[in-house]
């Protein structure tokens, strides 16, 4: 506070900054509210998907456990490891309130003989087929979960940042600017008053010099 010079120019500068700060505060607050609304939607969706994925996966694992009980471990590994199928992921970004959130879409390459059952049916049990089918079913949910969870994290980060900015403006910047403006305008008023008083005093002295009121008053009295 002590470092600011109480001049009209600085006052104008401060007023301009206050106006910008108030406007920025309003905009950021709106942004925060909208982000929050979207975030809550994403959170609900994430919750739903997580339950779905966890249930689906435990189902798939259970089926796999049955399969591994029926088949020998070596056979099981042999059956699964030589998979020809490849999944490739395409990532696009969507802009949600200036946050770039990923959008995943996957493609499976359709090579000859590539499917989710990469083994010959002769040497494997039917339980393994069930496990693979269950896993494939849950996979698209897993992908969606990845997308929504990342979105959630990125939104959370952005909300945190925006919230801090809003608070910094609301509780630090704006009060400080208002205080400075008040200080300067009071100081200016004070200067004005003292100038006025000085002028009045000078005028009195000048008039006294010209007309000698006091002497005349003494003579008449």
């Amino acid at each position, binding site marked *: 506070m002590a470092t600011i010079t109480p001049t009209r120019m600085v006052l104008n500068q401060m007023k301009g900054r206050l106006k910008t700060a108030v406007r920025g505060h309003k905009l950021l607050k709106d942004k925060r509210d909208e982000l929050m609304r979207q975030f809550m939607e994403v959170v609900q969706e994430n919750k739903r998907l997580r339950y779905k994925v966890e249930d689906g996966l435990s189902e798939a694992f259970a089926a*796999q456990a049955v399969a591994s009980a029926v088949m020998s471990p070596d056979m099981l590994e042999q059956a699964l490891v030589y998979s020809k199928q490849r999944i490739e992921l395409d990532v696009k970004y969507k802009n949600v309130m200036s946050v770039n959130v990923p959008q995943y879409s996957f493609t499976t390459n359709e090579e000859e003989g590539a499917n989710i059952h990469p083994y010959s049916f002769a040497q494997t049990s039917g339980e393994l087929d069930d496990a693979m089918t269950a896993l494939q079913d849950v996979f698209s949910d897993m992908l969606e979960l990845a997308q929504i969870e990342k979105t959630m994290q990125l939104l959370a980060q952005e909300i945190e940042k925006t919230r801090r900015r809003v608070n910094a403006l609301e509780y630090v910047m704006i009060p400080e600017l208002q205080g400075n403006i008040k200080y300067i305008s009071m100081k200016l008023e004070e200067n004005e008053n003292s100038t006025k008083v000085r002028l009045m005093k000078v005028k009195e002295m000048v008039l006294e010099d010209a007309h000698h009121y006091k002497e005349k008053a003494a003579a008449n009295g």
Partner: protein
Amino acid sequence: MYKIAVIGGRDTIMCFKALGLDVFAADKPEEAKKILREITGAENSYAIIYISENLAVGLKKEIEKYKDSPMPAIILIPGREGSLGIGKEALQSAVERAVGIDIL
């Protein structure tokens, strides 16, 4: 084109291999840490990395690091032992971070 990685116990990842994902076997968190560092390194072509929950327990710090970057997304999945609830914890911590308190 990006790829998807799965890090987990040998039994957990076997099926994912057949599905066509890149799998990395790890039995201990230290191994998983090493793998994670490797696959998130220079080429950076993994957009999603699934890690089984029992490994993720010891990897919290590493996973935290990737939270703010748009890529890769590190997602916890339950291992064969069933859900440990850590994946849901991530949800809670995100809410806490955004709102300031846990409102769920």
